[in-house]
């Protein structure tokens, strides 16, 4: 653990603008300054089309800014190669999307262990054990041998969260993780995210339409038209 981790933001955007160069250029987000500290639980809200997903992709190094800089652990990522960006994503970031995006050919367990196998820090037995432990955390260890299409929507989303946590990332980025779930499953997944932040000390950034989910987070960033409209802490 870095002694200065408390002071240096995990992710910081400075003057970030992202313009899609289409026939008519589309501005996704504009002049964003945003600093996220280690262990923060931030909800991102805003009307449809306000740029929430776009902001999340920039925070997660999936997309690159047209203007401005993204800092990870205080380091400017502007000059990073594609491979270096992939490496940072592999080790430090975990994504959860609205659709689970699990690989249909693989078992639930294998889906969760894939990022660990790619990273290669653990041996086979450790990977298996960690995979099973993650599934157990989300009470789906009994489904380990099944394929994703044999699971319910809520179970799949829990597998996706387990996969995002596989390499023990500092930051979890989620784009409407409960958007496709019914009330009950939605509450379960919400609870998981709250625990990730509160009990495991991870940084969680979650885009959501759900008022309850947004209110559960200590900090809320509200977007309108690609700009930060309000940034409130409770």
């Amino acid at each position, binding site marked *: 653990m870095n002694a200065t981790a408390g002071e240096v933001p995990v992710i910081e955007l400075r003057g970030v603008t992202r313009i899609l160069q289409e026939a008519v250029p589309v501005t996704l987000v504009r002049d964003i300054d945003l600093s996220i500290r280690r262990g923060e639980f931030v909800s991102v809200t805003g009307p449809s089309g306000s740029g929430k*997903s*776009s902001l999340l*992709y920039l925070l*997660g190094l*999936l*997309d690159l800014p047209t203007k401005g800089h993204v800092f990870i652990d205080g380091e400017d990522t502007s000059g990073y190669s*594609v*491979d270096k960006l*992939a*490496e*940072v*994503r*592999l*080790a430090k*970031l975990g*994504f959860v*999307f*609205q*659709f689970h*995006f699990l*690989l*249909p*050919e*693989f078992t639930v367990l294998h889906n969760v262990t*894939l*990022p660990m*196998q*790619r*990273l*290669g820090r653990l041996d086979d037995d450790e990977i298996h054990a960690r995979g099973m432990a993650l599934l157990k955390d989300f009470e789906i260890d009994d489904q380990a041998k099944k394929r994703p299409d044999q699971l319910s929507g809520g179970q799949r989303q829990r597998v996706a969260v387990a*996969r995002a946590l596989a*390499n023990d990332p500092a930051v979890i980025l989620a*784009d*409407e993780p409960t958007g496709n779930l019914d009330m009950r499953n939605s509450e379960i997944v919400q609870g998981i995210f709250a625990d990730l932040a509160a009990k495991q000390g991870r940084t969680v950034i979650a885009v959501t339409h759900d008022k309850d989910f947004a209110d559960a987070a200590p900090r809320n960033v509200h977007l309108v038209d690609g700009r930060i409209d309000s940034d409130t802490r409770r």
Partner: protein
Amino acid sequence: MFWRVSIGIAAAQLSYRRRQTIVSTLGVALGVGFFVATSALMSGSEQDMVRRLLDNAPHITIKDEFRAAAPQPVFMAFPEGAVTLSSTKPREYLRGIKNHGAKVEELSQQPGVIAEAALMGQAIVRYASKDASAGIAGIDPEKERFLTTIEDNMREGSLMRLKTSSQGMVIGRGMATRLGLGMDDLATVVSPTGLVRRMKVVGIFRTGNLLLDEGQAYMLIKDAQVLLDKPFIANRIRIKIADPDIAEDIAAQLEARWGYRTESWQEVNRDFLGLFVIRNVITYSIVGAIMAVASFGIFNIISTIVMEKRRDIAILMSMGFRAADIQWIFLVQGVFVGLIGMVLGWGIGLVLLQMLGSVEINVPGLMDTQRLPLAIGFFQFGIGGLFAVSSAVAAAWFPARKAAQVRPVDIIRGAT
């Protein structure tokens, strides 16, 4: 480590699409199988034909000719002079190879060499008021047995009987039928200079080669010398050597030494040997075409997987897989299909060879049934396998690159 991940993903994606994978693997396998079979047949028949060529004729023939006309004496006298001479005719000389006896003697000393002095000429064979023009071959029956397969192709009588009967000759079945000649009949043989002799048929052969069967008559060289009025002359030295592959070199040496035109079997059959090259080109083109079709199959399946898997590729990349990892996943799929196709293809090739090997061919006129000549070697299997794997990798290359170029954010932006 991540190698194993790429291979694992590749295997999972292929086995998920079992039917398509099997079809494209079978495409490769058929290509390899047919290559193995046709290649074995082609090189088998090539070896067979070369063997026939070698058995039916001497390896080297020295002729009483020169490659270039002898230079005029005036040019030899004034090599530097500005001399022109028009309307000259090369000097006539008494045809025949000088000192052929000594040359044959010397050649025969070499281990594995059989040399025979022979006199070739033309004559007309006449019987019951029918004529046939014939090439006359004055030979030594003892040596002829080793030089050509005439003795093996005798249907009646034998070449050896030339030695025991006076004025005997051996003719082909075609000529015998045309003239109505049978064994021990006396035919009239007329030479170009007008000499007429009566000769007894002591043997009838049939080689299957029309030129020989209808137009060649064998006799002792001394009978030919009398008939053609060329006493003591031989105009051919016919040679068989231990290793026919070096015939060309030896022929060149002999020609350089004695000056007489000396032809190797390769030179005589140059056109024919050129045909083998063409046949090989055809074989490889056809197999190349089969493999190209198989490659399209592989290209097709992997392109389809890449198209269908864009979302999965994007998610793998968002997780932190690099472009190179993704490219490997799809290249490995090509290698899988190529390798499995190769092994299956070897199996198919073996089955095809088994089937080809059991085909029996009955050539009319030949007593014994023939089988297809097959040359089965590691060569065909190796080349076939190389074809399979390399075309599979080439076919996978383009879709794999395409997969590596996927930008995950584009896909994810579109999907959510």
